[in-house]
């Protein structure tokens, strides 16, 4: 079936990019109102077009759900052709809807949050660029164009994290994000080159990087699938903050808080998960790479959750919680449940955006106080922020019927089928998550106020432009997961059915891994498309799934209960826990396992030394500046004096050298006759 061409897809990307260009070019010249309008309306336009694409897609028969928009042939290089070409399939439809939707809310929120900032217009220009780049990433129908978006969001995160660059720490955080991402991008690039090498010459003059072409030639890719998968995943660990490259994300909170919301929810970090899901046809070929993805995901989830328990900075807790939740998503992809991973990407976008913007609202009210030890008792003063954040807390903890419950449950169930050990890790992390999120809420909104005396009376609820997005996201945190209401609870998991055509390879792969019973289920889902197949399979796993769901719900409630009890009534318990094992454990967690310090010692310092001594002092300062530049310009060293002799402005000298050239030519010709 031929994909349907719709030309408005390009406008989904062009609107925010155009907004960014316009705002960037007219920087500091436009009134605030115009800036706000341009920035948010362009993103709103993208959202509406995305919705249009979604409905157009839904109207199509399941097997033919593909919209394309080939803009132009970007790079015709010999036999290789790379197009600027966009596509919307069910996966992309989900991504663009929540990316533009959440980004729009963040734009609205930013209008209130950034009010009066000197860089107001610059901020919105970057924000639009960020959204535009993310949309390129998810709309691209080929890997190189995806890479453009991939690099683009990297650049924007750098610009926005270091937005308040007057403070050195902020620009250092921006640089860190950029450099750490570069390491991952290097892997990504190598993976892409390996694909090119494998497919070049074998797939004719086609656009060999397009996902459709690659998916058709999996047999060619199979021999190197593990290498490609791991290299691409290296890129994903950078962008999506997984072990070992997660260190940049917690520092990324140096940027304005809405930016954190954007990075942690709608853009950037979801890119890695999206890429792995998009390349599912490749990953299912390679159990090794899949296993690596799953293990890294589970470990990251655990490590980050344990760190989050000990942090005092409200944004740091949220940052590590993002790292941890991203771990879940990769865990899902690693066990072949790509749909569940993407489902969690979406629900996570709702509640994490809400959590960050809620935290921003608190920070805003407290005059940029981010330390939870100096908060407390804000419940009555900021009711909207409190209620919405509470909803988000329930969602991220996986309490029924909040959004996080459904997606997390699906991930844990699929993990359980694959590996009990990984499931146990994921299960434990669920409990930790409930606990540290409750801690955050308890320290911020409950108990006595620890806000310093000066500001305590000024604390007030944020303006409407900030609270309305909170309310919208609050509602989404509640109902956003219902679309994936599972079979065992009497739903039909429309989310999974919707994505099924994209992940049919994944399901086939999973089928191979899971033996006969599931194989019937999965390949039925894959080939016979879909709703019916999935339904027949329900009965096989329904009871297990129900048991697991009850177990994780119980753990979540336990975590919440413990959290409230400890941080509201029995702070002595927390104190005792801190001192447990001689305080070593607390020291280790509070110090974030000292990963930053280890990297500093092993990589940063040697690298710095190399740059400073070899590249800068010797090569740059010594060789280039000293010998080449200053050598010619200032001291008329050997090179300089010779050159000056030649270029002395005297015509007769020019004629001499001219004649010399003629003689060289003639001499050469005589010699080589």
């Amino acid at each position: 079936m031929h994909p349907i061409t719709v030309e408005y897809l390009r406008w989904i990307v062009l609107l925010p990019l155009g907004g960014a260009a316009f705002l960037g070019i007219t920087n500091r010249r436009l009134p605030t109102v115009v800036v706000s309008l341009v920035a948010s309306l362009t993103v709103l336009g993208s959202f509406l077009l995305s919705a249009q694409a979604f409905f157009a897609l839904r109207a199509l028969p399941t097997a033919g759900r593909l919209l394309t928009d080939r803009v132009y042939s970007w790079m015709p290089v010999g036999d290789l052709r790379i197009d600027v070409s966009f596509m919307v399939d069910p996966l992309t439809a989900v991504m663009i809807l929540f990316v533009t939707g959440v980004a729009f809310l963040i734009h609205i929120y930013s209008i209130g949050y950034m009010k009066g900032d000197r860089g107001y217009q610059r901020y919105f220009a970057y924000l639009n660029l960020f959204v535009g780049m993310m949309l390129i990433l998810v709309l691209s129908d080929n890997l190189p164009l995806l890479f453009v978006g991939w690099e683009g969001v990297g650049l924007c995160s750098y610009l926005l994290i270091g937005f308040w660059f007057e403070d050195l720490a902020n620009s250092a955080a921006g640089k860190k994000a950029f450099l750490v991402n570069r390491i991952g991008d290097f892997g990504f690039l190598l993976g892409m080159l390996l694909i090119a090498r494998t497919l070049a010459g074998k797939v004719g003059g086609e656009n060999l990087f397009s996902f459709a072409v690659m998916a058709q030639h999996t047999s060619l890719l199979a021999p190197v699938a593990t290498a490609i998968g791991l290299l691409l995943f290296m890129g994903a660990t950078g962008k999506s903050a997984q072990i070992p490259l997660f260190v940049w994300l917690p520092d990324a909170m140096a940027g304005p808080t809405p930016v954190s919301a954007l990075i942690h929810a709608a853009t950037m970090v979801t890119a890695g998960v999206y890429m792995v899901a998009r390349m599912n046809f490749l990953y299912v070929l390679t159990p090794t790479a899949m296993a690596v993805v799953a293990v890294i995901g589970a470990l990251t989830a655990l490590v980050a959750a344990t760190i989050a328990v000990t942090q005092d900075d409200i944004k740091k807790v949220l940052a590590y919680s993002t790292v941890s939740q991203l771990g879940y998503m990769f865990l899902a992809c690693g066990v072949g449940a790509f749909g569940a991973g993407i489902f969690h990407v979406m629900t996570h976008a709702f509640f994490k955006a809400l959590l960050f913007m809620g935290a921003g609202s608190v920070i805003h009210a407290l005059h940029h106080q981010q330390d939870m030890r100096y908060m407390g008792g804000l419940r009555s003063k900021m009711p909207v922020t409190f209620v919405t954040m509470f909803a988000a807390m329930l969602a991220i903890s996986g309490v029924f019927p909040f959004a996080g419950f459904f997606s997390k449950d699906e991930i844990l169930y699929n993990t359980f089928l694959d590996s009990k050990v990984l499931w146990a890790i994921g299960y434990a992390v669920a409990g930790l998550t409930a606990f540290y999120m409750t801690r955050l809420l308890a320290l911020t909104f409950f108990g006595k106020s620890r806000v310093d005396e000066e500001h305590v009376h000024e604390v007030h609820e944020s303006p409407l432009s900030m609270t309305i997005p909170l309310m919208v996201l609050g509602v989404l945190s509640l109902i956003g997961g219902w679309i994936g209401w599972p079979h065992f609870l009497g739903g039909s998991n429309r989310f999974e059915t919707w994505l099924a055509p994209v992940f049919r390879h994944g399901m086939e792969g999973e089928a191979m891994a899971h033996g006969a019973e599931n194989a019937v289920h999965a390949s039925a889902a894959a080939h016979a498309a879909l709703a019916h197949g999935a339904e027949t399979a329900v009965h096989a796993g329904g009871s297990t799934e129900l048991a697991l769901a009850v177990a994780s719900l119980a753990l979540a409630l336990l975590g919440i209960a413990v959290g409230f009890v400890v941080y509201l009534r029995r702070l002595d318990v927390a104190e005792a826990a801190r001192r447990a094992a001689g305080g070593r454990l607390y020291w280790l967690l509070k110090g974030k396992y000292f990963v930053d310090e280890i990297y500093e010692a092993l990589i940063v310092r040697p690298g710095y030394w190399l740059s400073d001594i070899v590249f800068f002092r010797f090569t740059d300062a010594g060789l280039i500046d000293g010998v080449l530049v200053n050598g010619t310009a200032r001291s008329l060293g050997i090179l300089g004096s010779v050159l000056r002799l030649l270029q002395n402005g005297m015509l007769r000298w020019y004629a001499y050298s001219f004649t010399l050239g003629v003689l060289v030519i003639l001499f050469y010709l005589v010699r080589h006759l």
Partner: protein
Amino acid sequence: MSWTELSYIAPILWLVAGGVVVLLLEAFVPRRDSDHLSIVSAVFLVLAGLSANTGLVRTSQSLFHGVLRADAFGSFFALIFVIIGLLTVSLGAVYLRRQSTPMPEFYVLVLFATAGMMLLASSTDLVSVFLSLELMSIGVYVLAAIERNSSRSQEAGFKYLILGAFASAFLLYGIALIYGTTGTTQFEVLGARMGGNAALAGNLVFWAGWGLIIVGVGFKVAMVPFHQWTPDVYAGAPAPVAGYMAAGVKAAAFAVLVRLIWTGMPLLMDKAAPLLMGFAIVTMTFGNIVALAQSNLKRMLAYSAIAHAGYLLVGVLAISGHADDAATRGILFYLAAYALMNIGAFGAVTFVSRRRGERSELAGFAGLARRHPWVSFFLAVCMFSLAGVPPTAGFWGKFYVFGAVIQQGMVGLAVIALLNSAVAAYYYLRVVVYLYMREPGEDAYIGDDVQASAAIGVAAILLLWIGLFPSSVLELARLGAAALARTF
């Protein structure tokens, strides 16, 4: 001579007609300023461009008994020259407005010299090569010296004239030797005779003729060691003229060089390849190293022009003579991009200059982005393009040329060229550093001319446009290259 033949050279006729009209207007309708003449000139350039477009057909037509050839190759260059001419007229108008005495002959000279460039790119006879080269050069000599009360401009024109005459003498001598040994000056016949004549391959006089022709063309493209006029003339000539020379003269000279190489394939290439390779390496390395030390934008651009001649020579070496030759395609693309970025860069000098004296010290550009964000952005685009950074046209130019070189198996040469590009990035990006990251000094430049910034903007936007959408220009270049191979 028939009407059909004349219609093939319509662009050239439009330009000559334009030159005559402007000359007459100037004589019979004297006015204090000459802005109206710039508009008349632009109109004729546009007419030339429109008529050149019709020549972009898949045909190759010999004209006037083999003196000229109408093909997509010539049409490609005609389009480049029209764009160069339009931008030069626009920047020239800005320049002339600042002068105390009116100099309307500027436009006449530009129109005639542009006609010469087009003729040169279409010439298929050594005699017409020489004539059109002179038509172009004499115009440019006078343009370089057009500022009568500036001794530097006078010096530039004078030097260029003397050395140009010197080079022309070598060229003419070379043509005579070729004619003496082969009995023809026509490319077609010459190529045929070289193909089947073993005696010629061992004939020193014949090869000396080729050697001297290379000297003559090498002078125009600023190949080391025939380059020495370049810094003095570029620095002394008014900025619009310097940009016109850098863009147009170089493109025209390379056009004729490429045609010659194609004609003399494969015998000429076998013989001259090591020699040209030596010149290419020396030219780009010399240009880049000396450019590193320049503190004046125009001088820096002069040395950069030398370096770029080296890169293009590398491309010339990779010409295979096969159908769909990648190197020829790359060279055409490169020259189109190169023309735009040079006009843009010299345009920035025009923009900041004043009535008394031109201003092109790099230090004066410090902090320009604060006062003129647009012009700074355009100039930065030109610099990025010169350095070959994507997404600008300069990147694709280098990519296609060096790619063709690698395809021909000359990896070592490509590596040298790439290393040179890396060195060059230093001095191009230094300009960007000055624009954006240096505090403006006491005598920081200010400009105020909208027309100048618009002209630079057109060049920069075209560079970005071609950088993002290279395929259209590449297709034109491919047609041009195919015209040489006569495979359409």
